[in-house]
Every structure is written in C-alpha cells, then in structure tokens.
C-alpha cells in the first residue's frame, strides 16, 4: 500500500512541469507574440488613452520576466482578466458555463463507450463476421466526419424532416424554467428538484448534440477495444483459463475484457483531447451555452482575455482529466508501478 501511495505521489509530481509548461505557452500566446497585447485586451473600440491604461494595469511596460511573474501571480489568485463583452471576470463566466459543456461532453462519452466497447468486443470475438465489418466501416467513416457537419445533418433530419427533436437552441426549450442551480448539470438539478418534466425536456434537448459528439468519439474507442480484446484473447492466460474449463462468459469478461479495458482507458485520454476541441464546434451548431460557444463569441468580438482564459482553462481541464485517468489506471491494475513508466 505504501508503494502505491508513493507511485501516486510521483504521478502527481509529474503533473507539475506539465502545468508549468502550459502556463508558459499560455503566457507566450498572451504577451510575447508580435503585436501589442494592450490593443487586444482593450478591445476593438478602445482609444489611445484606454490602451495606455490597460498597458499599465497589465504591467506591459515591465520587462518580459517581470511580466511573467505578474501573470503567474494573477493566475494563482484566479484572475484571468475581465471579459469585454460580458463585463464579468473571465473566471466567473467560465465557471458559470462549464457545467453545460461538461454535461454534454460526459453524456457523449458515456453514450459512445456504451456502444463502442460492446461493438469492439463483438468484433474481436467474431472476427471476420458482419459485426467486424460494421465496426471497420464505422471506424473509417467516424474519423472522416466533420462534427459540425454531422450536427447539421442530424438537425435537418430529426428537427426539420421528422420533427422528433426540439429546436437546436440551447439547453432547454424556452417554455421550461431552468431547474434551481445546485450542480449546474440540468439532468442532476432537475432530478434533485423532482421535476421529471424538466428532466425529460433536458434529455430531448441534449439528445442531438450528444449523438453528434458520440459518433465522433465512437471510432477511436471501438478500434482500441477491438485491438486490445484481440490481443488479450490470444494470450496465454486465456488459453489456460479455457483449458481449466471455465465458462465462456467467465473467460471473455472476467479475464479477456478486464485486461483489454486498460489500454481502452488510456485511449480515453487521447479521445478527451478531440472531444474538448469538437465540443467548440458542436456547441456552435446547437447554440449550446457552454464554454466553447463562449470562446467563439469572444473570438468574433476580439475579446482577447476571454479567449486566452478559455484556452488555459481547457488545457488545465485536459491535464486534470489525464491525471485522473492515470490514477484510476493505477487503481485498476495492480501491476502498474509508475517508476517503470
């Protein structure tokens, strides 16, 4: 047990240089690139005087190294600057909108895992059957799909043609009231308020963007599950288990899938990178009030602090997610010690 605690400690320590690197890149993006950051931060409507004010307020008249420490100190205090378009601190804006994005991303991942893992297992068990071919077609087509285009197609078919889906505008149809905010996840909040009608409306509104994102992430997860399962099934312990006369289900799920899941969990880290990017596009298509559409609005309005805050927040979110994946990996698999890497 002590060894495991040490392993977790080492993994936590490995995160520190990555976070520092992220902060440095974000500093370079914000301050050190050609062009005058003060002009960006002051916004499109600023005059000479307000630009000068911004320059002094941000310490942009100081040397670069001093600027970095000022920037770092601001970050530690949670100060990402103030958004020009909303007038709020960027951190407040992001915190308000993050649950919407997380709700969408997590439901998409749950849906895609629920489809992709069984599909991958079936494709590996029945290699060369129609399930295997279906899996291959899905994998090749899935990586070619532009998410924003699939989203638009789904809107056309399910909203315009069939009329099954509500209009693709936001998290809740305007006839419903937002559930009282506890977690910010409408699915959870509406259940906590015992409001099944709002819950149903949330699910209907969530369905299309979730399917869009899920289709996009299906491919890598299914491909990895198939490959990992094939490898697990061809290993010696499976042969031993079969020879020992264990039931087919026990061999497949107790031994095969359990070992195959480890590389799949690792793939999830990479999938997150794609999902967080694709989120921006899907949120724009469905007018989803998450941090992705916040960043798009900020980009259009040249709201510089908001965009940079968003990039930094996404990077930190991604680093945290990867850390959680690695830690859970260590908890699942007793063979993993981090020192071997």
């Amino acid at each position, binding site marked *: 047990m002590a060894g495991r605690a040490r392993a977790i400690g080492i993994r936590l320590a490995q995160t520190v240089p990555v976070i520092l690197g992220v902060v440095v890149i974000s500093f370079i993006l914000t301050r050190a690139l050609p062009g005058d950051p003060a002009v960006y931060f002051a916004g499109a409507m600023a005059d000479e005087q307000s630009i000068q004010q911004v320059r002094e307020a941000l310490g942009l008249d100081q040397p670069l190294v001093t600027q970095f420490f000022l920037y770092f100190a601001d970050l530690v205090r949670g100060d990402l600057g103030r958004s020009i378009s909303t007038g709020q601190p960027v951190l407040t804006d992001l915190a308000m909108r993050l649950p919407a994005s997380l709700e969408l991303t997590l439901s998409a991942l749950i849906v895609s895992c629920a489809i992709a893992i069984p599909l991958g297992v079936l494709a590996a068990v029945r290699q060369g059957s129609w399930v295997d071919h279906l899996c291959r077609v899905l994998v090749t087509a899935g990586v070619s799909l532009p998410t924003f*285009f699939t989203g638009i197609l789904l809107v*056309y078919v399910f909203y315009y043609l069939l009329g099954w889906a509500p209009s693709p505008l936001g998290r809740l149809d305007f006839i419903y009231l937002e559930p009282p905010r506890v977690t910010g996840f409408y699915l959870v909040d509406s259940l906590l308020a015992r409001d099944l009608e709002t819950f149903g409306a949330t699910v209907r509104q969530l369905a299309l963007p979730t399917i869009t994102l899920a289709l996009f992430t299906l491919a890598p997860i299914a491909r990895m599950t198939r490959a990992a399962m094939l490898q697990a099934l061809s290993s010696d312990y499976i042969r031993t288990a079969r020879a020992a006369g264990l039931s087919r289900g026990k061999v497949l799920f107790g031994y095969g899938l359990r070992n195959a899941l480890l590389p799949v969990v690792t793939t999830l880290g990479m999938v997150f*990178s794609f999902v967080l*990017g694709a989120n*921006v596009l899907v949120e724009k298509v469905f007018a989803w009030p998450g941090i992705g559409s916040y960043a798009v609005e900020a980009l259009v309005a040249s709201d510089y602090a908001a965009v940079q805050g968003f990039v930094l927040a996404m990077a930190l979110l991604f680093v945290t997610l990867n850390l959680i994946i690695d830690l859970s990996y260590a908890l699942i698999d007793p063979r993993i010690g981090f020192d071997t890497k």
Partner: protein
Amino acid sequence: MTDATDIPDRKPDGAGAHLLHVLRENPVTLLSFSMFAFFLVQAFFGAMLVPHDPLATNSANALQPPDWTHWFGTDNLGRDVFSRVVVATRLDLTISVLAVAISFVIGSLLGAVAGYWGGWIDAVLNRILDTIMAFPLFVLAMGIVAALGNTIENIIYATALINIPFYARLVRAEVNIRREAGFALAARLSGNSHLRTLAFHIFPNALPPMMVQVSLNMGWAILNAAGLSFIGLGVRPPTPEWGILVAEGANYIISGHWWVALFPGLWLMLAVFTFNLMGDGLRDIVDPRRRT
C-alpha cells in the same frame, strides 16, 4: 504521389510488383487513389471548369433547390453552390498541404536531431512536445490564431504547429533505433560526417512510416482548417471554403434549405475520407505485415 492510371504500365520489378499486387488485392486503395486524382483535378482546374462565377450574386434566384442549371442549387444570395464547392477545393487543399509540409520539415529536423544526438536536446524537445500535447489541439489552434491574428496564413501556422509533435516523435523513434545500427556505423567509418550519415543513411529509413503519417494527417489538417473557418477564423466570406460554406448553409438548414450546407459538407467529408483511405493503403504498400 503516383497516379493510379499509370501503375499497370510499370515493369513488374520488386517494388512495382508489390504495388501492383496491393492495388489488385485491395480495390479500396485503388478507389482512394482515383478519388485523390479527382480532387487534384478540381484543385488545379476547378476555376476553369465550373459553369458559373462562384462570386456572382443573383438575388432573383436565391435559395433555389438543385436543378439542371444549378446542380447543387443556389445559396441565399443566388450564388451557384456547385461552383463554390468546386472552387473551394484549391484553398482547402493548399491550406492543409502547406500546413502538413511545414510540420513535416520542422518535425523531421527536430526529431532527427533529438534522436541522433540524444542528451539534453532530446530531453528539452520531449518536454516541449509534451507541453504542446497537454493542450486539446483544436483549442490550442484557436488560441494561436487568436493571438497571431485572424488570417489564412495564421491558420496554416497553427495547424502546422499542432501537428509537429506527431512527426517529431515518429522521426525521433525511427532515428534512435538505427543510431547504432551496422549500416550507420559503417557509413561513419567510411568517413561520412555525423550530419551526412544522419541525413542520407539514417533519415531515409524513416520516410515510409512518415508518408503514412502525412496521408492520415492531411485529412486531419483539412478537418482542422475547416473547423477553424466554421467558427469564423481565417478565411473571410465571400471567399469559398468548405468550412465557411457549411457555416453559411447552417443558417438555412432549419428552414429546410438542405442543399446549401449538404454539398460543401459532403465534399469536405469525401476529401478527408480519401486521405484516410489512402493512408491505410499506403501502410499496406509500405509495410505488408501491418495489413488492416
């Protein structure tokens, strides 16, 4: 890139015979090469071939469904969607080819140096690549374009930068395992400098897997650039570009004018699909053991 049609003319010597065999064995690869040719023709001659001026507006004829004069219909300003989609091919391919070329060159240089000399160069490079990969890549591209300014060149630089880690890591691994190989040591012994050994003896071995990576990356670069312009970065309207065409069409999809968004989206998808299929095919040609 070899054109699909001239392959049967080749003498069936070693590599040619293998190529022929793979193409005969796998019609999908043949299909992907012909689709690639189809897109190349559009990129080079699209502007001459299209029936209408892609920028000519005609408000009397706005939002017409597809018919014999306007194969893909017309958009909200009466512009011909077919002409716009075809003409856009050149811009989309140019952005992704340039982006992939830049990351290929820079990634190769960095990876080769780090893989051959190792030491602190290697350690520093790995840290930097890790940091780039610590960002969700599309989000990083957004940040770069926002910081550098909203132009097409900056879309290219951003797409190139987020692709560099893939090439650098690949080359680093390929160079590193051959650093002490017999032929590399022999090349050194016969008087080649380090640089010459690296460039002409070791690096060429990394090229086959690099070509596969290039093809797979091209599709991704197109998606990335189209995604950036979909959210309003880089390409400005009225310039035809697939991402922007889909974005313009998205406003009319909820009123049932499907053709404005469908056709550019379809073209974009086909282009990405072509490059992905080609990547798989190239992998078969390059490495017969890893057939999928």
